[in-house]
């Protein structure tokens, strides 16, 4: 057998091989659909009353760009640290991540960014348009008035905010207890608004007379006074009960004194819960009396649960009918109620007295928190009549000058973030009013909707990048889940129940940097490009070109296979038919 080995060159090796470039083969001619970078709307941003660009905010934080993340929030909301604490976060309710495991802790991240990011304040706040010579009078330095001032300043208006109290903030400063919202947080965010150029004039209660005279000096008015006066129960002995709102005001004023013994709190809203939880902290045994069922309470569910955890007793289906004094204590007579088949206009189950049974509750203090109303009639927004424009979060009336009513009195949901939305909507409405006329207001606002609204984006109004985003709201089915693995929601540290009931210290801690990093990684960044580069990596024709951090499709070679679109984990691309 021949043992000689052949030289390599003698081994036949005829294969397809060419040094000619395949660039001549313009595979783009095969294409009948073309991919495009096509950003869409994340469900969280559409659900956020302030329309924050949450998908982008989480992307920036994940890149460690906290200042850019804060800047992005401040385009739409001047109160990140406040909202991160007190917003009822409808964003999380619709978060697509829930389809995989748990929603992203968006409110914790917003708080983290608000508390952590720093930098030159003027570089963080949005760019202001040059002053346009118009002045706006804002009544009430609550979240809606402050927001109206902030956004109007951005649009070039000079704003004066008149506030009856000694310090601005409204409900933020005077209503919400410190364990939910520390004063320092409120003060710091208001300071940013003042530094942005908004003038706040405190200790100046506005009257109808004042307004009449001010019409000469101001081109427009924003009335955002909120609910200043508590509603009455109209029962015998009511004057022996203390006003819950006033109680909360005095606590925020620093008048924190121990209260021993038992206390009843009448009501089922957030104020009632705040009063009851504050009482517990002062040393009292608090019982909440509510005429409907626990599940009917208008208070945020999480707040109710916390109250129960902290020792607040809840008596449901009891309606107060009388208060009597007895040996230095009070006897609260309660009518037992039951549910009926009827519903209220708001869709809640109507309750009716359950027989004649009356119970008596002996307590040492009684607080009422059954709701509130504006403290003066001129603060009410006008009703339905010709010449009044009812928008989702504010009401426009009058022409010369225009009056905008906003805040809790016009908002569908009485929340801080809705108040911010109201201020923003009013600012845009005033600007459209002056630039294009009153008739253009509704149409003009419709261009700024986030998704299908009602949230509005100031960034869109200013013609920013969000303007080109599709209003399609990304669903869980639009996400390519292959690129995500299960990872539970990061929980922030919190004070033990036993400790939290001894002080007004904030219960929950702000995320640490590593917690925030872990949590932002969970965000799908629905509908927006986070430069993951899958499109470029997977393109079989190398037709995705990356230049100056921007990606584009080389249509000479893109054959329209759609792999880039399919492999985009977050639906930031789309395919369209060739025309």
């Amino acid at each position, binding site marked *: 057998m021949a043992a000689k080995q*052949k030289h390599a060159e003698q*081994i*036949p*090796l*005829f*294969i397809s*091989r*060419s040094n*000619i470039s*395949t660039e001549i083969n313009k595979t783009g001619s095969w294409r009948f659909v073309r991919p495009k970078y096509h950003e869409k709307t994340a469900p969280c941003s559409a659900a956020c009353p302030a329309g924050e660009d949450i998908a982008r905010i989480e992307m920036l934080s994940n890149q460690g760009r906290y200042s850019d993340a804060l800047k992005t929030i401040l385009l739409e909301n001047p109160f990140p640290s406040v909202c991160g604490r007190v917003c009822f976060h409808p964003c999380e309710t619709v978060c697509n991540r829930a389809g995989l495991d748990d929603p992203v802790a968006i409110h914790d991240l917003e708080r983290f960014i608000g508390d952590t990011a720093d930098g030159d304040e003027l570089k963080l706040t949005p760019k202001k348009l040059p002053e346009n010579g118009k002045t706006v009078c804002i009544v009430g330095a609550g979240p809606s008035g402050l927001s109206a001032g902030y956004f109007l300043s951005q649009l070039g208006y000079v704003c004066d905010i008149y506030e009856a109290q000694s310090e601005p903030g409204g409900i933020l400063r005077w209503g919400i207890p410190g364990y939910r919202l520390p004063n320092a947080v409120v003060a710091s965010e208001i300071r940013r608004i003042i530094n942005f150029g908004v003038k706040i004039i405190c200790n100046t209660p506005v009257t109808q007379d004042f307004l009449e005279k001010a019409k000469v000096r101001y081109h427009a008015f924003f009335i955002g006074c909120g609910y200043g006066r508590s509603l009455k129960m109209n029962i015998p002995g009511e004057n022996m009960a203390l006003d819950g709102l006033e109680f909360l005001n005095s606590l925020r004023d620093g008048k924190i004194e121990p209260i021993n013994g038992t206390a009843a709190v009448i009501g089922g809203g957030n104020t009632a819960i705040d009063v009851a939880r504050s009482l517990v902290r002062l040393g009292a045994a608090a019982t909440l009396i509510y005429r409907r069922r626990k599940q009917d309470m208008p208070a945020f569910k999480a707040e109710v649960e916390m109250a129960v955890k902290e020792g607040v007793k809840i008596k449901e289906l009891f309606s107060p009918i009388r208060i009597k004094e007895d040996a230095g204590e009070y006897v609260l007579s309660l009518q037992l109620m039951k549910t009926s088949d009827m519903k209220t206009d708001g869709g809640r189950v109507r309750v009716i007295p359950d027989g004649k049974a009356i119970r008596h509750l002996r307590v040492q203090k009684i607080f009422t928190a059954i709701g509130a109303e504006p403290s003066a009639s001129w603060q009410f927004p006008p009703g339905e009549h010709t010449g009044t424009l009812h928008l989702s979060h504010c009401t426009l009336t009058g022409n010369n000058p225009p009056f905008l009513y906003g805040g809790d009195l016009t908002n569908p949901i009485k929340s801080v973030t809705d108040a911010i939305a109201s201020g923003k909507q009013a600012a845009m409405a005033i600007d459209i009013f002056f630039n294009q006329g009153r008739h253009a207001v509704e149409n003009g606002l419709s261009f700024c909707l986030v998704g299908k609204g009602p949230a509005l984006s100031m960034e869109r109004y200013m013609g920013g990048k969000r303007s080109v985003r599709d209003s399609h709201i990304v669903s869980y089915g639009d996400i390519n889940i292959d690129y995500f693995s299960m990872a539970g929601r990061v929980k922030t540290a919190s004070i033990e129940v036993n400790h939290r009931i001894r002080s007004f210290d904030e219960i929950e801690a702000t995320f640490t940097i590593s917690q925030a990093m872990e949590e932002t990684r969970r965000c799908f960044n629905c509908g927006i490009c986070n430069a993951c580069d899958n499109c470029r990596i997977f393109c079989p024709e190398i037709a995705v070109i990356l230049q100056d951090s921007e990606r584009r499709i080389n249509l000479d070679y893109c054959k329209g296979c759609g792999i880039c679109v399919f492999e985009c984990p977050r639906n930031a691309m789309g395919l369209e038919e060739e025309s």
Partner: protein
Amino acid sequence: MKQVIEGSHAVSEAVRLAKVQVMSAYPITPQTHIVEALSEYCADGTMNARFLCVESEHSAMAAVIGASSAGVRTFTATSSQGLALMHELLHWAAAARLPIVMAEVNRALAPGWNIWMDQTDSLAQRDTGWIQLYCEDGQEVLDTTLQAYRLAEAINLPVMVVMDAFFLSHTFEPVDVPDQELVDRFLPPFSPRIEINTSDPFAIGQMAPPNVYMEMRHDIQKAMELVPGIFTGVEQEFTKIFSRTYGPVEKVLCNDAEIIMVVTGTAASTCREVISDLRSKDEKVGMLKLKMFRPFPTDLIREYLGRAKKIAVVDRNFSFGASGIFAQEIRAALCNNNTHPPVFGYIAGLGGRDVTPEILSEIYWKTKNSPILENESVWVGLLD
């Protein structure tokens, strides 16, 4: 130095010693131990190589095709369903003339699910253009893997080193694991003839119209025809260094044999005992161990088997509607020879069933006592 290691790890050691640069594999019993050890070698730095984890055998082969095209030494391993899934790319690897080496552990195909020894998986790939070498024990599989790189790189064709599931892959035997220095003397670094390179770009594997395709295929066959000679040369060099030799076929007591039994893989070891026993009873029996199946060593088959009176082929495989595959190939090799003894085909040991000395004796006696060939294949050891 001799070590007691399992057959799978004999392959892993050879791959380590061959200084393979890129490996890719998808786990499948009974192959997994091979790449398990190699992935550990990559992870702990024993080997300076990349181990690419992939989602299928199809991708594993695609990955090594890519790596081999870039001119590096590559390895993969598979079995049964995994090999079947690779089928398309087995054709590609051979026609692209890439010197890839793969360990293939013979395992039965499903259904019914069966993870045990059966040769039908590798034999079903006989037309893909891969060189196929069947091994008998741990030492042979280590040595053959080393030789496979020399052979593949000399001829620019891929090599499949085939071994029995469990009987070889999972059996611990003393194996001489050679020193690196000796292996380096035998197997120099790979100097590729095909090496895609970004600094001098060219395209490979593109359109081959009718005016060139046939010539390309003819070249593969011309290369295949050179394999037996080159293999012998490689073995001679191997023997000089390691003092071991195997041959494309091994004949045992064939010169005066009237009946020659043809066997492959670990059954050869059993058969050695059986023929020795039969010889002590004055039976004129010999054994031919077939190692190289592709290219088929037609000349040697004719030379060694042509003189016998009867041939008994033991197939642990089957081509449905025809016969055992080794028997077919041997019949085809002999039919144009001057002398062509009758070829008795026996099917035994499918799906991991033992091929015992009793089975092999039965095959011998059946062959001796049958005056004429009644069936192309006789299934031995079927349950009643």
